[in-house]
């Protein structure tokens, strides 16, 4: 017989959620569902496993070593979904062909990715998000971004920021100064990690004229509204000034909603493995050291599925928000009242439970044989009230009641 070495632990990168942890998580999910549904998005669920091919088409957006892979009964490669946007693109391209546009969907489901061992990151994370498919308009971008801001504020974290940027600035500079692909990738990487010293060294040793100065500035261009005037002083290219005008328009509109201090600009957002083609944005919350929300416009993803549909959307890492909120919730795991029915009065006790429940109390019906056992249990659990039901209802004094 094989040794059962792993029978009492969970795989690395996964965990159980108990009591208040679970409560906080579900509360965030509830708040976001309500927000998304209230803004006219409809929920969809996609399968936990998908064929590998869904994620590995003309462009592979997700690194293969990040995917949890296995095979189906016929030996075909399947993966645990690493993302919801791509499966939704598959779903819309097949099931919703000809559906009136734009299509507004939301999702709430776990995504899986293989993280480096011992890095303390979760391989399974609940992600919630929205997609607007079939609209290329600025209004769609604004709709998605304002929903993102509302999502972060609905989560009730102590502070948050949403930053906006545009992938087109970097792409335009690379094309205009004829920078070869491998050098462009190295520049992109250094801008992404804001490695100013290495970026300066690299660009000083390249022959790309005034492009060097512009690319050097890109990762430094982040902050509030002043970024736009700085950027306008640096970039004279028509495409880029057009992009800046567009971004400023979005920024101003959000500022009008009274969100000025929550919105920042970062022109140095240049992710790889992204399907984003236009405006991009990210959310950060106090208490979580990584990106908690990310989104943007992705107009070419649907081409992989044979459709010509512009789209925009975002996803929130619900685990991140729950982590940021953890410790702020009261424990709340013990019920308010324990009801114990004496033999013959079990149904009467149940009726009382229902009655108290209707008053909004959390009521537990005792499953013990004797009142003494019920009382002992109530005391260890820290339940403040015990009611004995027989001919009468009697409040039984609890030792150390309310010590919770």
């Amino acid at each position: 017989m094989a040794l059962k070495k792993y029978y009492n632990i969970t795989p690395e990168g996964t965990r159980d959620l108990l009591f208040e942890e679970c409560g906080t998580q579900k509360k965030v999910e509830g708040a976001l569902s309500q927000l998304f549904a209230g803004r006219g998005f409809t929920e969809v669920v996609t399968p936990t496993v998908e064929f590998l091919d869904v994620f590995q088409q003309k462009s592979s957006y997700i690194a293969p070593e990040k995917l949890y892979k296995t095979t189906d009964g016929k030996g075909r490669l399947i993966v645990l979904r690493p993302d919801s946007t791509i499966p939704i693109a598959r779903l819309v391209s097949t099931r919703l062909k000809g559906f009136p546009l734009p299509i507004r969907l939301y999702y709430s489901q776990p995504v899986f990715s293989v993280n480096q061992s011992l890095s303390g990151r979760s391989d399974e994370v609940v992600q919630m998000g929205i997609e607007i498919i079939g609209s290329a308009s600025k209004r769609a971008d604004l709709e998605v971004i304002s929903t993102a801001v509302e999502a972060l504020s609905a989560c009730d974290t102590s502070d948050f920021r949403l930053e906006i940027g545009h992938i087109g600035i970097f792409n335009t500079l690379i094309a205009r100064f004829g920078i070869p692909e491998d050098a462009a990738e190295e520049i992109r990487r250094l801008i992404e990690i804001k490695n100013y010293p290495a970026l300066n060294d690299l660009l000083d040793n390249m022959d790309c004229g005034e492009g060097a100065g512009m690319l050097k500035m890109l990762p430094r261009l982040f902050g509030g509204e002043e970024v736009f005037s700085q950027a306008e002083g640096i970039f004279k290219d028509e495409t880029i000034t057009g992009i800046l005008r567009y971004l400023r328009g979005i920024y101003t509109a959000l500022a009008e909603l009274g969100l000025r201090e929550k919105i920042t600009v970062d022109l140095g957002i240049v992710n790889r493995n992204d399907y984003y083609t236009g405006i991009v944005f990210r959310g950060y919350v106090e208490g979580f050291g990584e990106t908690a929300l990310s989104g943007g416009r992705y107009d070419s993803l649907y081409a992989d599925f044979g459709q010509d549909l512009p789209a925009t959307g975002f996803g929130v890492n619900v685990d991140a928000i729950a982590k940021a909120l953890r410790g702020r919730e009261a424990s709340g795991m013990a019920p308010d009242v324990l009801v114990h029915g004496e033999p013959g009065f079990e149904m009467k006790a149940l009726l009382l439970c229902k009655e108290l429940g209707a008053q909004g109390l959390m009521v537990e019906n005792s499953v013990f044989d004797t009142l003494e056992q019920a009382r002992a249990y109530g005391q260890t659990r820290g339940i403040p009230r015990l009611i004995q039901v027989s001919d009468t209802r009697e409040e039984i004094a609890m030792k150390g009641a309310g010590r919770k």
Partner: protein
Amino acid sequence: MTKPIRIALTKGRLEKDTVALFEKLGFDCTQLHNKGRKLILQVPDANLEVVLAKAADVITYVEHGVCDLGVVGKDTIMEHGGSFFEITDLGFGRCRFALCGPEGRDFYGGYAVKTIASKYPGVTRRFFAGKGMDIQIVKIEGSVELAPLLGLSDAIVDIVETGSTLRENGLEVYEDVAPISARVIVNTASIKLRKQEIEGLIARIEAVL
């Protein structure tokens, strides 16, 4: 007073150099000098909280956002990688990664797969992958120079400062791999949530470098 900015320093020489830098800026470094066994120290006038940690842990703390900033060598960054912003080269702690081996040998000659000993398997793998060369890596924890002397490896990839240990043991540098110096790294969320404070501090540091 707002929440202090928390900075993780690599214990040892980089810590001393950073404290010297703080003193140049006029910060009150009393606690940093009389730290005893304490691991978290205050620089009250600069609203800084200093954490002392091993190099690789500095990266871990900054990546997870429990520290906003970190001072760590480029050697550790190259070996461990991770997601953070690497914004300033402090210029101290200078040395280099180099490929070294017994004097007078033609390392690149022959077709046999070479064995390389190193404390930095990641750096070694990437260096040779860049050359399209298959090699075998043996991870060594202590004095790597021993490995070629004992015949375990053909060469080593290690940090070289003056090169005197190499010379004393009949080894020489075959090729430089990368220059190293101390860097300031920043958590990706902190720089967005506390931009002004962090940029202000970095600007003051850069002004005295």
